[in-house]
């Protein structure tokens, strides 16, 4: 298992189907338990709270009366509890569905690898000749985004909303997604078969691994993306009369409620963001441990029984560290969506200035986390099949992905205080 792809049997394809099925089963189970069973019981409690609230109003109580406040708090709490469980169940179902699809796709592309001894490039040697994947993926993204507005409107129309469908845009977007998937698939196929690391020449990266230099330049552009969010947020924020501005004596009447006004005063509302902060930091550490283990030729299992059962061999240790990272990243997405559902329920939606910058900035960050999770699935697949090791000289994949993942953590270091606490 620990040589190159030519040693990987096509039974791996079936293994990936089974694991994909397992992921779907986990998602379905989570949905049934959280969204259906627990969610419906909380919906029942919520219904009762609404009836009680209406009765209190009918009895003539209003704001300021203990009965009214108590009934209103009970209604809100029941609604938020219902949202917590249903959002968690639905999010886990969708995420495991995506995970299963990508894992099975990885298995499929693995199964169509050339047989041992086959010349990959038709010219008698195995040297890497560059990849078509970047241009394919860029083309796919272009078509997807070109038709995106029509795609969204068509989806809304199909859901029965009062929007006219634009099927031309819908089809262009689907073509884009297809090209994108083909590009991703081709990239996985090439990477699984063993990538010959290319060395950059010329200044300033001469002598460095070309993919590492490319990753850092990509991260440089990502810093700019997040800088636009922060600068636009700061521009709007400094003009609002918020709780903070009022307490600093800069204005008299609060005219804008920010997400942080709704989140930071109570340990319960601050908890999802706080847990997410710790989840990302821990996941940064686990990806470092995966890389460290992959690079360590002298790795030995721990003497601790629990750790030994979790990380019995080097290959399984790398895979399991990556799985832990995936689980922590998934937790981040689930908690973020639960938090969003609560904020929307409290009236803080994307229709306001404060809402739009909050959801766009934190949503862009969440999207980065999600894309990272999908790439991590491929790393897990590779760790499970080909394996990462110093001997295979393929551990760099974890290092370069780790750079991206640490950047996502780094962005959160700024987003968390700026959008959740300030």
């Amino acid at each position: 298992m620990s040589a190159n792809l030519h040693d990987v049997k096509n039974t791996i394809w079936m293994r990936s189907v089974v694991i994909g099925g397992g992921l779907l089963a986990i998602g379905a189970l989570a949905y049934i338990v959280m969204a259906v069973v627990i969610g419906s019981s909380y919906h029942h409690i919520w219904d009762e709270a609404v009836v009680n609230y209406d009765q209190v109003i009918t009895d003539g109580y209003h704001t300021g009366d203990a009965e009214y406040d108590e009934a209103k708090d009970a209604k809100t709490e029941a609604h938020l509890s219902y949202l917590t469980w249903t959002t968690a169940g639905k999010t886990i179902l969708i995420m495991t569905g995506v995970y299963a699809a990508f894992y099975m796709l990885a298995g499929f592309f693995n199964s169509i690898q050339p047989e041992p001894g086959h010349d990959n490039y038709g010219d008698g040697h195995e040297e890497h000749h560059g990849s078509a994947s970047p241009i394919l993926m860029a083309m796919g993204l272009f078509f997807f985004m070109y038709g995106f507005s029509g795609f969204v409107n068509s989806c809304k129309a199909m859901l029965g909303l009062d929007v006219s469908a634009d099927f031309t845009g819908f089809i262009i977007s689907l073509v884009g997604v297809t090209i994108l998937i083909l590009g991703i698939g081709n990239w996985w196929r090439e990477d699984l078969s063993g990538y010959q690391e290319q060395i950059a020449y010329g200044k300033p990266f001469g002598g460095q691994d070309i993919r590492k230099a490319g990753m850092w330049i990509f991260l440089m552009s990502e810093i700019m993306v997040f800088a636009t969010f922060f600068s636009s947020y700061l521009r709007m924020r400094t003009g609002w009369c918020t709780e903070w501005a009022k307490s600093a004596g800069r204005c008299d009447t609060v005219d804008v409620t920010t997400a942080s006004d709704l989140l930071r005063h109570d340990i319960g509302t601050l908890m999802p963001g706080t847990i997410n902060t710790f989840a990302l930091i821990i996941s940064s550490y686990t990806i470092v441990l995966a890389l460290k283990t992959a690079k360590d030729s002298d790795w030995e299992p721990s003497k601790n029984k629990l750790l030994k059962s979790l990380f019995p061999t080097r290959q399984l240790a790398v895979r399991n560290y990556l799985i832990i990272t995936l689980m922590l990243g998934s937790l981040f997405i689930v908690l973020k969506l639960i938090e969003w559902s609560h904020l929307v329920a409290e009236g803080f939606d994307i229709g306001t200035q404060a809402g739009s910058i909050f959801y766009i900035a934190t949503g862009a960050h969440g999207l980065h986390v999600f894309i990272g999770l999908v790439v991590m699935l491929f790393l897990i697949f590779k760790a499970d099949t080909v394996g990462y090791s110093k001997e295979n000289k393929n551990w760099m994949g974890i290092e370069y992905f780790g750079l991206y993942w640490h950047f996502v953590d780094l962005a959160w270091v700024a987003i968390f205080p700026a959008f959740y606490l300030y």
Partner: protein
Amino acid sequence: MGHEKIMGKDIYFWNFLVLILFTFVEVAAVFFGGSIDLKIVWTILIGVGIIKAYGIAAFFMHLKGDPVVYTMTALFPISFVVLMLWGIGLSNPDSILGLPAWCSPNWDYAYVTN
């Protein structure tokens, strides 16, 4: 860098502990922010943010130990970030009047006061 040991543990472990510790400080500063001076809260948040960013970039992203060209690459956009935060972030006419002169882009806000 990863081979250096402190009390039997590698630098990644200690960096992780430091990051966790400062995250507790960060959350506590905001949660108890109502009873602390606003400037102190901000000083804590910015200080903790810088320390955490350094810990992640220097140790987890291996900038400390990698060739200096990567550090330069990471720092390259910082000048643009500063420019954007200054030129866009602090350019709100309503806010700029209350800012100290040294952080004002010095644009003409006459129409605001008029």
